């Protein structure tokens, strides 16, 4: 066998495609991962990174395309097949049993490799010292910090013989010092010949650790670059797409009437750490305020604090002049807040209930879904039919269960529902995530039309097309703080991308 100039790829994904009902998660994906390198996979939320990794790890089967590992074409029926090919995955959410020791967690499910006693302990100690993990096999996982737990997860996949390790947003849960330690571990692993696939959307980190970077956008690979040849700005541009929609040229509909007035809002998590710091914003009738940001920077908390699902640790929320800080969710929604949640399955729908019942959800206090204390079945069904027709929801009827609809159609139904009953404020979190382009345009049109009628909109999105195309005012959120305002007519995607990823030299969050 003659030796080719380029070494055999550790993993080669060719023309991978994956479709779900109504959505194409991946198409024409080509990735070649060189052995012994750190290969970063970057892209916005919804760009198809996680589906791609699930395909590589055998959780899902591709509809099209081929996977080859070490030059040989393979098909994975389950993660067990991937593991046997030396592929391991470290999930963002740790899968560890707190009340077991490091040793017990590592051998769990892999008892046949080195038993569960001394031999296993030796192997763990060997791996731990070889890669500088510094883990004690006898320590209880509950006493470990986040960084150490992550090392246990990595140790688990090494113990199972993985040579190719996928790390799904490994830095999302880490503080900066822990990130440095992780990167040191990764370099150690690389030196020992392991191949690492690093999924992230934090551009500075990617540039710091990766040897090659593949950018995914809207389900497909758009470029593979070397970190030495690109800047964070370039990457941000690749991630969000260089071609930008012309900002809505319609005349401004912003009025003087303040609908939502958030002042000095602070939100803490259960442990007392602040997730939102001193957030102040105002939205007027007829105004769309777009909050651009990468997920996990506090926008979920902002939305939930406005809706009343999360208490404010400090500051106030006022709706149309009323201080609603102490109001519960129901009272706020009855006062005219529409809510398009970021996770429609968890917060937006009852999947096992028919559409007409879902019409009632969140509108329990208002006609036409209810009449006093009574449910108005015909009213809810009739209005569901209206939503189905005017929002082009593809469904056999309003008796169909919400769970049977495709994601895009579920989303259109939610948007239609939340636009019902003349809301004064619409809180829209990623309103077009996971929907096809046709539905996306329809949803944007509906939001623009409602804005002309005087609706105030708090738009949270990671999609810059959406934020720039819809908003009258844009602010970026980074680590729980809002930046100053950007004007959608003049802002460049680079400026915005930099503000939301913290990349480069653009001015960051104003305190």
């Amino acid at each position, binding site marked *: 066998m003659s030796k080719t100039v380029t070494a055999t790829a550790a993993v080669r994904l060719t023309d991978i495609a994956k479709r779900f009902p109504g959505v194409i998660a991946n198409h024409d994906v080509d990735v070649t991962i060189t052995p012994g390198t750190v290969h970063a996979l970057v892209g916005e939320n919804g760009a198809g990174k996680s589906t791609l990794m699930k395909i590589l790890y055998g959780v899902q089967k591709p509809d099209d395309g081929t996977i080859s590992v070490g030059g040989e074409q393979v098909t994975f029926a389950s993660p067990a097949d991937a593991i046997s090919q030396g592929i391991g995955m470290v999930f963002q959410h740790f899968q560890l049993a707190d009340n077991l020791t490091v040793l017990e967690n590592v051998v769990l499910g892999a008892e046949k490799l080195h038993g569960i006693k001394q031999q296993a302990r030796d192997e763990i100690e060997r791996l731990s010292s070889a890669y500088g993990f510094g883990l004690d096999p006898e320590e209880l996982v509950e006493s470990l910090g986040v960084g150490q737990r992550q090392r246990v997860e990595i140790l688990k996949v090494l113990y199972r013989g993985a040579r190719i390790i996928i790390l799904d947003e490994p830095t999302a849960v880490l503080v900066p010092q822990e990130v440095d330690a992780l990167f040191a571990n990764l370099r150690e692993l690389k030196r020992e010949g392991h191949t690492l696939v690093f999924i992230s959307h934090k551009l500075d980190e990617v540039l710091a650790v990766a040897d090659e970077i593949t950018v995914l956008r809207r389900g497909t690979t758009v470029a593979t670059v070397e970190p030495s040849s690109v800047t964070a700005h370039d990457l941000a541009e690749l991630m969000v797409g260089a071609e930008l929609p012309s900002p809505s040229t319609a005349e401004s509909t912003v009025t003087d009437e303040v609908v939502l007035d958030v002042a000095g809002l602070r939100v803490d998590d259960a442990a007392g750490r602040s997730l939102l710091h001193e957030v102040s914003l105002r939205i007027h009738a007829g105004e769309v305020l777009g909050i651009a940001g990468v997920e996990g920077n506090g926008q979920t908390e902002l939305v939930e604090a406005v809706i009343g699902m999360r208490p404010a640790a400090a500051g106030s929320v006022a709706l149309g002049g009323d201080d609603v800080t102490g109001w519960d969710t129901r009272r706020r929604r009855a006062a005219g807040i529409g809510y398009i949640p970021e996770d429609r399955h968890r*917060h937006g729908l009852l999947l096992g*209930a028919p559409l007409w019942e879902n019409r009632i959800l969140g509108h329990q206090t208002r006609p036409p879904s209810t009449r006093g204390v009574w449910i108005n079945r015909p009213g809810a069904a009739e209005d569901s039919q209206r939503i189905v027709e005017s929002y082009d929801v593809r469904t056999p009827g309003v008796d169909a269960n919400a769970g049977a609809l495709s994601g895009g159609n579920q989303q259109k139904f939610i948007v239609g529902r939340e636009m019902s009953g003349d809301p004064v404020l619409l809180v829209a979190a990623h309103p077009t995530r996971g929907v096809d382009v046709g539905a996306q345009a329809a949803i944007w049109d509906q939001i623009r039309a409602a804005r002309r009628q005087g609706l105030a909109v708090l738009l949270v999105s990671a999609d810059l097309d959406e934020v720039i195309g819809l908003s009258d005012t844009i602010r970026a959120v980074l680590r729980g703080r809002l930046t100053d305002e950007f004007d959608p007519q003049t802002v460049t995607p680079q400026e915005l991308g930099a503000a939301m990823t913290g990349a480069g030299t653009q001015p960051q969050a104003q305190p």
Partner: protein
Amino acid sequence: MSRARRLGLTLIAPLIAVVAAALVTSLVLLGVGESVGEFWAVVLSVPSSRLMVTIVNNASVLYLSGLAAAIGFRMNLFNIGVEGQYRVATFAGAYFAGLALLPGVLNTLVAIGVAMAAGAAWAGIAAVLRVTRGVSEVISTIMLNAIAGGLVAFLLRELGEQQGQIRRTTTIPESAWVPGIPLIPGEPSLVYGLALLALVAGVGYAVVLNRTRFGFDLRATGASETAAVASGVNVKRMTVAALLLSGAVAGLIGMPDLFGDSHAYGSTIQVGLGFTGIAVALVGRNHPAGIALGALIFAFLSVQSNALGIIAGISPEIVAVTQGVVVLSVVIAYEVVRRYQLRIEQTEVARALEREPAAGSEVGT
């Protein structure tokens, strides 16, 4: 999906379950060397009119018990404490009625109210523990069952009176008794007058759960707590309300017998009704009509089995196996049918999409 098809699928699950239960019971009988033919001959014989009345009486009580459990189930709350709630409530109602503070029917009505309040209060302990301290209602209600047994025995000793071998509360004055209903012409034994409570409670359950905002909130919380919270449901308040309601209905379980037959609470009170109610609610899938069917099946099996020992020489306890298998197979059959239903529904939606190719999703072209 057409309504007819939906209904057909709903009915097929219990049918599968009953057939499976019959098969398993037969296999168990074969395994222990009993006569399968004789067993079914006895169990499936047409009951005498006296036994029919007994079946209706038992079923009405089981129905109330099933409803009490189902109220919790609809919200994903497992009120295992129906048994304890029912005993505390029946004692409270019997003691109050025995005091004869009020005349005639008024005494009956208020005593029923007292029983419901007592049942609700007993369930309320579990509710408060859950919403304030996060204690699982499964654990707390099981413990409260044990405490209820001891509490009632203690109260009976303190407040009851000795009648022969047993200790019981003061007999309720005759003016407060509820006369029976002659269900079958010519049959001297009567159906409990308060069996009608089961009917009222069943209608109330159906109306409240399916037609009111409160019921919607309760079902929404059971279906998806996160979605319910986002829609403005106060889950803690709903938890308390659902457990109080469940306890109040549990308080009704003892009333038909108390005012129709026993006229006092004594150590002969029927135990286990609360637990059987959980099984009945499972068989009935928390549907008001389904629970009625489940209650009838359970009552029928246990009444018919009494003759097994005499006629066929088979221990009547064998029907406990039948009842158990009914529960298990119902749970399995419903899950199978649910998945099948979901699949055909998704296929239908996909077909509706194909008819309109404009719905194509050309992401990122």
